[in-house]
């Protein structure tokens, strides 16, 4: 699998000279499988650039949304294949207890928040709801599971040819836990990440910031690293960086956490433009 990071920022797009290295676009990751199928994880502002790089001939696109917060959705109407007639676009994501995925998405894809309504989109749109369970998408096996984050949110584990990539961009597994982690069976997201070849995980805060923002739905770098240790992943990508964190701060936060915790997995900083090959 070829994993490309098109947007790694959390909460709000943050362009500027201080974020050139890690990037300012919000969550979007593309995974290319062994048979060239492309799965898109989240539709933050990074998806616009991804759309420009996909071939015009592409006939089918698969977008997996973790949840519908704006930083994971804002780029969707700017994704070029969505505006092309004859392209089949499949969108997966969580429903709420009372509203379906399509209806929830329409809140954003309609005036006054956006000038064009979903009915005017030219591509052939299909909506699929998945609170949890495993589905097949071409060569991929995709498992979704609800995880801790405000409003219905899922994480994903994507497998191809026996290799696994786990994507938990917005996740607070330490919520309410007095000493994190407390154990495998009581840890949100454990099943999705267990033994993954690559884990892309929320690392929004420093531990001091986290203490002021418990319940916001995000992790500090320290908890994210501990989650990686608990789940015994092989490679870890800190992701969903806080808009206030500059390149210099992120480099310093990551290197200090590596020094403090000495993880037994590879740490690859979540920088926009990074490409990671999983499984050869």
């Amino acid at each position, binding site marked *: 699998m070829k994993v490309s990071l098109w947007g790694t920022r959390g909460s709000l797009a943050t362009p500027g000279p201080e974020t050139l290295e890690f990037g300012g676009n919000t969550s979007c990751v593309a995974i290319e499988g062994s048979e060239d199928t492309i799965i898109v994880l989240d539709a933050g502002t990074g998806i616009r650039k991804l759309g420009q790089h996909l071939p015009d001939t592409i006939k089918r696109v698969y977008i997996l949304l973790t949840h519908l917060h704006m930083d994971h959705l804002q780029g969707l109407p700017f994704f070029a294949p969505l505006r092309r007639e004859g392209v089949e676009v499949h969108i997966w994501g*969580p*429903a*709420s*207890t009372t509203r379906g995925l399509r209806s929830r998405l329409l809140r954003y894809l309609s005036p006054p928040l956006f000038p064009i309504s979903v009915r005017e989109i030219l591509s052939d749109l299909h909506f699929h*709801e998945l*609170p*949890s369970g495993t589905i097949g998408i071409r060569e991929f096996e995709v498992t979704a*599971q*609800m*995880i*801790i984050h405000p409003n*219905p949110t899922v994480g994903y584990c994507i497998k191809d040819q026996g290799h696994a990539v786990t994507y938990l961009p917005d996740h607070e597994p330490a*919520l*309410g*836990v*007095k000493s994190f982690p407390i*154990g*495998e*069976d*009581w*840890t*949100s997201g*454990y*099943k999705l990440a267990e033994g993954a070849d690559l884990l892309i995980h929320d690392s929004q805060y420093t531990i001091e910031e986290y203490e002021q923002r418990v319940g916001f739905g995000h992790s500090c770098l320290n908890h994210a690293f501990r989650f990686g240790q608990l789940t015994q992943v092989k490679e870890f990508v800190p992701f969903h960086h806080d808009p206030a964190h500059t390149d210099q701060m992120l480099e310093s936060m990551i290197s200090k956490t590596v020094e403090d915790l000495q993880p037994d997995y590879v740490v690859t900083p979540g920088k926009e433009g990074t490409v990671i090959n999983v499984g050869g």
Partner: protein
Amino acid sequence: MAQKEIEVILARQLAEYLALPIFIVDPNGDLIYYNEPAEEILGSRFEETGPISANNLAGIFKTLDQDGTPLKSSKLPLVKALVNKQPSHGSLWIEGLDGKLRKIAVTAFPIIGQAQRFLGAIAIFWEVPK
């Protein structure tokens, strides 16, 4: 051990911070978590016992009606919430490990999560002043 569903994990985390005794059971009726206030009634700590199967639970404390007659499990609010998948409330007497008889009120409700997934039930109970 299999990871619990997120609704169950969040229920435990809330229970850990509440002063009312709380039981969380899975769809089979096995007690998968009880908080500190509930430990006083059970007479043992969750960290020591771990989960307790539904069969063993019945042997840990007796449940009685107001006449002192043992209650059938089907009459217990927690069992009703599990079986009927609806909230249930009732009062009963229990005899814990310390041999004391206490009158308690119980409110139980099913844990029905996203996409109508049935994940177990929660019972909140408190001692009724005599």
